[in-house]
């Protein structure tokens, strides 16, 4: 069974339907890049996978568990926010605007989840958090506050913060879109090494180069629907759909 299974996912904001029945499967260890013009619903879909948005129709399963619901007695019961929080422990998310906690140091940001959510002891979490900082190349920034870090550094801390929960799945919502061009590389490098280590990842991005070199599969969305999907070389080098060709002609 795939780690992520989405079937007929629909979502409207007011009268605007932003997801018009999305089907998607992501296997364990797979890296999937969502591409498409802005307003296509890529970010919204990603947020639905983590239950940051509720869905109006369809179903999303992560590791066999229906997102936002509890299956019992042949019915799906909508979860209270507290129980939904419990589900999110296994899914890491990285945001476009980093969203680090500004009142805590880099190290404290990373420790916050394991200590406050999992109730683990600070001493043992601290060593892990330092190792994570080292992994994203920021060991010397442990006691820096987010305001003292560059955008690229903040985003790498944010990745470490998500990893501290030992997630089964990582969601990246345009992780390099808010960065100065010269800082994009350092974040993509961390993501690439994460992919090499076998992390399952869904990445909303405009970095075609990253999708080409790292993704196992590329999914192209337009107007809330999947237009084309396949290996990077199929979709990026030999697109079958006119909308895909149009988009790639603009960004490449």
């Amino acid at each position, binding site marked *: 069974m795939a780690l992520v299974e989405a079937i007929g996912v629909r979502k409207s904001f007011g009268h605007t339907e932003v997801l018009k029945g999305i089907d998607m499967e992501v296997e364990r260890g797979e890296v999937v890049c969502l591409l498409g013009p802005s307003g296509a619903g890529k970010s919204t879909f990603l947020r639905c996978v*983590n239950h*940051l948005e509720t869905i109006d129709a369809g179903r999303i399963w992560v590791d066999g568990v229906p997102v936002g619901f509890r299956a019992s007695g042949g019915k799906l019961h909508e979860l209270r*926010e*507290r129980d939904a*929080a*419990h*589900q*999110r*422990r296994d*899914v*890491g*998310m990285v*945001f476009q*605007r980093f*969203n*680090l*906690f*500004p*009142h805590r140091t880099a190290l404290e940001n990373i420790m*916050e*989840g394991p200590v*406050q*959510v*999992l109730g683990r002891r600070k001493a043992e979490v601290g060593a892990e958090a330092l190792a994570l900082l080292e992994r994203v190349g920021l060991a010397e920034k442990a006691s820096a*506050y*987010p*305001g*003292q870090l560059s955008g690229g550094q903040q985003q790498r801390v*944010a990745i470490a*913060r*998500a990893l*501290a*929960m030992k997630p089964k799945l990582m969601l990246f919502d345009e992780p390099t879109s808010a960065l100065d061009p010269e800082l994009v590389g350092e974040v993509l490098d961390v993501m690439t090494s994460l992919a090499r280590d076998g992390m399952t990842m869904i990445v909303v991005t405009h970095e075609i180069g990253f999708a080409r070199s790292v993704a196992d599969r590329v999914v192209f969305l337009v107007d809330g629907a999947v237009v084309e999907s396949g290996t990077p070389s199929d979709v990026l080098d030999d697109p079958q759909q006119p909308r895909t060709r149009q988009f790639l002609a603009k960004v490449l």
Partner: protein
Amino acid sequence: MASDTRMNDVREELVVVPLRHPWRWVSGTVIVLLLAALGWAMSEAQIQWEDVPGFFTHPVMFEGLLNTIVLALAAQGGAIVLGVVVALMRLSANPVARWFAVGYIWLFRGLPVLLQILIWFNLALVFQNISIPGLFSVPTNLVMTTFVAALLGLGLNESAYMAEIVRAGLSSVDEGQTEAAKSIGMTPMTTLRRVVLPQAMRVIIPPTGNNFINMIKGTSMASVIAFTELVHAANNISSRNLEIMETLFAAAAWYLVMVSIASIGQHYLERAYGPR
């Protein structure tokens, strides 16, 4: 080239004349003169200055001081707790809670504190007993002491202001912070306690400090229902010796001491929660 060198020579010879500020001298002198006049008037006034320190440390004054401090702290403390609750109701998804919060703020912010104190103090005129039928019943007069009436009047009014301050603070925290907290599996309560409130404090503390300073002075209104806070204590002393201004000045000094301490405390609190 030659002309350049000559220009430089000329430039070096120029003497700089700083801008003069004659009006600063004039206005400064006027202020000093006015202050001197005030000082002179005070020294000529018919005040027994030498009696003021005695009233400052008078046992009755100390009793009033203690009551003022207890009342101010209790009213402000209660107001902060109630304010957080009402602010959360105001931001709640439950429309009934939201409308209740709006009505609560409208009522308790809309009435003068003095009027509210008087209403609570006279509650026994309309409700002789406070009771939950079948559970308990007590005479209102017994419960509604001058302290309780003042506490309710000051505290409920302040809680309406605190609700708005807390709401502004909570709303000032970026939505992305809540989402980040959610994404690492935090429950709503933990998110509020660990992520939102600490950041909201930066917005909440300065107006709360101002309000607390107002609260210290506002306790003087409890003197109208004969609660022995500072002003009432001063009146008690002067009713015996008729040194009205001397006792009032002694009370005034205590207010300034308390407000100064509160201001210093606020300064350190702001620094503790300040930007990193």
